[in-house]
C-alpha cells in the first residue's frame, strides 16, 4: 500500500521515493490546482491506486520504462470521458499518446467531487484542472532535465514525450527523467499551452477501451462474478401505487437451484444459484398487492394535462413586460399545444449490482452514474459508516440518467445484509421497463402575439409536468428577445417513479418550442432562419430582462447550419430548421425530407454544435450523431403508457427503439472558437425532433404536435431511412 505523507503548507502532498522510481503526480480530476496536487512515488503504478489518498482521485504516473499511466476516476458510460480526459492531461504534458495507458481508478478514496456522469457537466468541470495537472508534470520533467544538463529550463522544449535541448540535438525521454522529476518542488503556478499549439486535442483518438470491448472482456457490472456469490431477482409491485399484501412462495422455493425467498419492503427476492434458475422460479411466485396510493393510467394523465393547462394556480417562472396587453392588441394570435409520452431509459445493460455486506464493511461492485450517492444511501440504509463501504465502478452499458438513481444499488446491499452473503441482483429487461424510472409525459401550451408587421410582441408558455417541478426552461431563447413574455408551470405529483432522462425537460421542450417558432415564423411570413436571427439581433440591441445564453454563439450555430445545409437553396428538398441551447452547448440542426415515389422520406440531418474546443473529434462526432439518432428514435417510436398504474410496454417487442434501417445520414460540424469545452452527451438530442417535424411540414403541409410521431395521423406515409 502506498504511503502518503502530507508535507507542508498549501496542502501539497508529497511522497518520498520508494524502490522502483518514477514519478506519480496525484491530483484531483475535478480540482487539480496546486493546492490539491501532490507527488506520490510507488513501485506499482499500474495497481488500483492508493487507498489512503484523501484529496486525490486521479494520478498521472510516469514510469522509468517510459509508460505514462493516467488513472481515470469518472464513471464511463459511453460519453468517452475515459479517453478524452486523459487526452487533455497528455496534451499539456506533451506526451506521446501511443505510450499513454488509461486505467480506471479504484473508487475507495474518500473524496470524489463530481464523480458522477450526468448533465453533460464533466468536461467543463475538469478542463482547467486536467490541463494544469499535465502542465505541472511537464514543468517538473523540464526542471529535472535542466538540472541534469546544467542549463536553465527556459532554454528547453518538449515534444512527444521527450525533453529536448535548445537546438534539439539531444533529448531525454520522460521515463528517463521521471525519478529525478519526483524530487522537484511542485510549482504553484504553471503556464498552459496556447490553444493554437494543441497537437492531440481536436484530433480523432480511438476509445482506449476498444481492444477490450471488441473481444468481449468482462467490463460491465453484468459481467462481474465472484466465487460463491448468489444470484437474485426481485419481484417489485407491478403497478405504481400498489403495495405488497401477501406472498405465497411455496412453489418457487422448491425449484432447482433456489436457496431462499426473501421479502423486504415491497420486494420479493428470489435467491439462487444461477440467473436462469432464479428467473424460472420467480414466475411461480403468487403475490397479492393492495392499493397504497393513486392508481393512474395514461388516459388520466391526458385528462389531467388539459385541466391543469387551465389551472389558476401556476407557478410563474418568468414575466417580462405586459403580456395581457400584448395579446389584447395583437393582430394575430397563434396557440398550439404539444404532448409527449412517458419514456423508458432502457440502457442496453439492464440494472444490476453486486453487494457483499460483511461484519467489517460493505463491498459494492457495479455500474453507477453516481457512485458517491450510492455509497451515501447505502450507508444511511444500513447504518454503516461510509468509510466502511467500498464501491468499485464497472463500465456502464449506457445510462441516459437511469443510473443516477441509487435504488438498484441500495436494494442489492439490503438483500445482502439480510442474506449475510454476497449477492448480485439482476434486473430483467421487463423489470427495468416496468419498475424503473421514466421520463414523464408532459404537455405544453404556447401562445404568440404578432402585430400587423409580423413582429412577435407577446409570448406565453405553460408547462404541465409530472414530478418534475418546473417543466419549463424559462430563460431559454426566445426569452430576452420578446417584450412581453410569461412562462409558468404546473406540476402533478404521481406515484409513478420518474427521473432525469437524457437532456431532462429539454428533450421534449425543445421540440415543442422549435416546432412552434416555425409556425410563428410562417404566420409572420418570414423565413424561419431569418426570423430567429432577427429575434437574436433584437435581444442583443435591446435585451428584455436577463439573458442567460450567449447570443453570438447561438447566431454562430444558426448561420453555420444554414451554410452547411444550403438552407433555402435546394429546390427538390424540404428542409426544417431548429436550434437549441442546453447543457451549456449550442446546437442547430437542419433536417431534409425528400419525396421519393410520392412518399416523404427523412434523408439527412445536418447538426452544427458549438461546444467550445472539441477535445476528441471521434468521440465528439459520435456523441452528436448518437444524440440525433436518439432524438429521432424517441420522437418517432418510443411510447410508454400506463394502465391502472402498470406499464403496458415491457420489452423491446412493444417498446420500439430506433434500428439501423431507420437512421438518416447525419452530417456533423463543430464551430471551432477556442472557448473552453462544454459537454456533448445531451445537447444534440433536444433540437432533433423540431428540425424533423418542421421538414415534414414543408414536405407534407402537416404539422406534428405530439410524440411519438408514428402514432399520429399526420405521419401517414412518412418514411425513415432509405439513406443508401
Amino acid at each position, binding site marked *: 500500500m502506498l504511503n502518503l505523507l502530507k508535507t507542508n503548507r498549501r496542502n501539497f502532498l508529497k511522497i518520498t521515493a520508494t524502490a522502483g522510481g518514477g514519478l506519480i503526480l496525484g491530483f484531483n480530476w475535478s480540482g487539480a490546482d496546486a493546492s490539491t496536487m501532490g507527488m506520490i512515488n510507488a513501485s506499482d503504478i499500474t495497481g488500483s491506486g492508493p487507498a489512503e489518498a484523501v484529496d486525490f482521485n486521479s494520478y498521472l504516473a510516469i514510469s522509468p520504462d517510459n509508460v505514462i499511466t493516467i488513472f481515470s476516476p469518472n464513471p464511463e458510460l459511453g460519453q468517452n470521458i475515459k479517453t478524452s480526459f486523459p487526452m487533455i492531461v497528455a496534451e499539456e504534458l506533451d506526451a506521446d499518446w501511443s505510450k499513454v495507458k488509461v486505467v480506471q481508478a479504484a473508487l475507495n478514496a474518500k473524496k470524489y467531487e463530481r464523480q458522477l456522469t450526468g448533465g453533460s457537466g464533466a468536461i467543463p468541470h475538469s478542463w482547467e484542472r486536467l490541463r494544469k495537472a499535465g502542465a505541472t508534470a511537464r514543468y517538473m520533467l523540464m526542471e529535472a532535465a535542466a538540472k541534469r544538463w546544467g542549463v536553465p529550463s527556459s532554454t528547453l522544449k518538449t515534444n512527444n514525450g521527450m525533453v529536448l535541448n535548445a537546438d534539439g540535438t539531444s533529448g531525454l525521454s520522460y521515463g528517463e527523467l521521471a525519478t529525478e522529476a519526483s524530487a522537484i518542488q511542485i510549482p504553484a503556478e504553471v503556464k498552459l499551452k496556447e490553444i493554437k499549439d494543441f497537437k492531440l486535442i481536436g484530433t480523432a483518438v480511438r476509445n482506449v477501451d476498444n481492444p477490450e470491448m471488441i*473481444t468481449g472482456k468482462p467490463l460491465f457490472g453484468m459481467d462481474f462474478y465472484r466465487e460463491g456469490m448468489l444470484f437474485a431477482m426481485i419481484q417489485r409491485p407491478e403497478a405504481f401505487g400498489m403495495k405488497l399484501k401477501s406472498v405465497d412462495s411455496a412453489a418457487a422455493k422448491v425449484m432447482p437451484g433456489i436457496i431462499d425467498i426473501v421479502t423486504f419492503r415491497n420486494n420479493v427476492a428470489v435467491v439462487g444459484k444461477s440467473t436462469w434458475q432464479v428467473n*424460472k422460479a420467480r414466475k411461480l411466485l403468487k403475490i397479492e398487492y393492495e392499493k397504497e396510493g393513486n392508481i393512474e393510467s395514461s388516459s388520466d394523465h391526458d385528462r389531467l394535462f388539459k385541466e391543469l393547462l387551465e389551472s389558476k394556480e401556476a407557478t410563474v417562472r418568468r414575466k417580462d413586460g405586459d403580456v395581457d396587453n400584448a395579446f389584447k392588441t395583437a393582430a394575430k394570435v397563434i396557440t398550439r399545444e404539444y404532448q409527449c409520452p412517458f419514456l423508458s431509459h432502457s440502457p442496453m445493460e439492464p440494472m444490476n449490482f453486486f453487494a457483499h455486506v460483511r461484519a467489517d464493511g460493505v463491498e459494492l461492485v457495479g455500474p453507477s452514474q453516481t457512485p458517491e450517492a450510492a455509497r451515501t444511501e447505502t450507508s444511511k440504509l444500513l447504518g454503516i459508516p461510509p468509510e466502511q463501504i467500498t464501491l468499485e465502478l464497472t463500465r456502464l452499458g449506457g445510462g441516459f440518467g437511469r443510473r443516477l438513481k441509487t435504488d438498484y444499488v441500495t436494494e442489492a446491499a439490503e438483500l445482502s445484509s439480510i442474506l449475510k452473503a454476497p449477492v448480485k441482483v439482476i434486473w430483467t429487461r421487463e423489470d427495468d421497463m416496468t419498475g424503473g424510472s421514466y421520463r414523464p409525459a408532459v404537455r405544453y401550451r404556447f401562445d404568440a402575439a404578432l402585430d400587423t408587421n409580423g413582429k412577435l410582441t407577446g409570448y406565453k408558455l405553460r408547462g404541465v409536468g409530472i414530478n418534475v417541478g418546473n417543466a419549463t426552461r424559462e430563460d431559454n431563447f426566445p426569452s430576452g428577445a420578446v417584450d412581453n413574455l410569461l412562462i409558468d408551470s404546473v406540476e402533478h405529483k404521481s406515484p409513478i417513479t420518474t427521473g432525469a432522462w437524457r437532456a431532462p425537460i429539454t428533450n421534449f421542450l425543445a421540440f415543442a418550442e422549435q416546432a412552434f417558432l416555425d409556425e410563428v415564423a410562417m404566420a409572420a411570413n418570414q423565413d424561419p432562419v431569418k426570423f430567429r436571427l432577427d429575434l437574436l439581433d433584437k435581444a442583443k440591441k435591446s435585451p428584455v430582462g436577463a439573458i442567460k445564453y450567449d447570443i453570438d454563439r447561438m447566431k454562430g450555430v444558426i448561420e453555420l447550419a444554414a451554410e452547411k445545409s444550403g438552407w433555402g437553396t435546394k429546390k427538390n428538398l424540404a428542409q426544417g430548421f431548429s436550434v437549441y441551447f442546453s447543457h451549456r452547448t449550442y446546437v442547430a440542426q437542419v433536417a431534409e425530407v425528400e419525396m421519393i415515389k410520392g412518399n416523404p422520406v427523412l434523408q439527412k440531418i445536418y447538426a452544427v454544435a458549438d461546444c467550445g474546443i472539441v477535445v476528441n473529434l471521434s468521440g465528439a462526432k459520435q456523441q452528436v450523431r448518437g444524440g440525433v439518432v436518439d432524438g429521432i428514435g424517441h420522437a418517432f417510436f418510443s411510447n410508454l403508457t400506463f394502465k391502472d398504474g402498470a406499464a403496458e410496454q415491457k420489452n423491446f417487442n412493444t417498446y420500439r427503439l430506433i434500428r*439501423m434501417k431507420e437512421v438518416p445520414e447525419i452530417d456533423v460540424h463543430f464551430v471551432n472558437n477556442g472557448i473552453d469545452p462544454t459537454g456533448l452527451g445531451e445537447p444534440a438530442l433536444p433540437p432533433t425532433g423540431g428540425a424533423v417535424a418542421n421538414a415534414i411540414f414543408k414536405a407534407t403541409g402537416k404539422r406534428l404536435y405530439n410524440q411519438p410521431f408514428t402514432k399520429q395521423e399526420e405521419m401517414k406515409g412518412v418514411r425513415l431511412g432509405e439513406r443508401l
Partner: protein
Amino acid sequence: MAHYNLQINGRAYEADVEADTPLLWVLRDNLGLVGTKYGCGIAQCGACTVHVNGAAVRSCTLPVSAAAKSKITTIEGLSANGDHPVQVAWNEVDVAQCGYCQAGQIMSASALLAKNPKPTGAEIDNAMNGNICRCGTYHRIHEAVALASSKLK
C-alpha cells in the same frame, strides 16, 4: 439437471444445467464466457448473438439442449488475438460508445460477411437490423461492416 458436452470456440466444455436453460446463461453463469450479453431475453435486441454452425443466432432464446451438437462461436473465440477483420474494422472506425451491444453487433456482422463477403449497403442494413444499439452508433457499425468487407481477401 442434465449433462451437456458443448463445442465452443474450438474447445470442449461441460455443463450441468436444466435442458431449457438458454445458451446465453450457460455461457455466462456456467462457463464464464461473459462477452455474450443479455439485453432483452426475447430475441429482440441481438446483444446475445453467437454463431451456431456459422450462423448468427440469438443465444437468449436457444435452449442449451438444442445447441449441444453444434459448433458454437462466441465473441471470445471469433479470433485468437482480436484481429478478425470485423474486430479490426470496429477499432479503426471507433464504433463503440458504451460498448454493451457491440459483441452482438460484431457477431452479426461477422456471420454476414462469412456468408456474403461483399454485401451491399441494403444487405448490411438487413443483416444488422436485429441488433439494437441504444447509444445510436448505427452509422459507424454500417461503416465498419463495409470496411471489414473491403479487408477480406
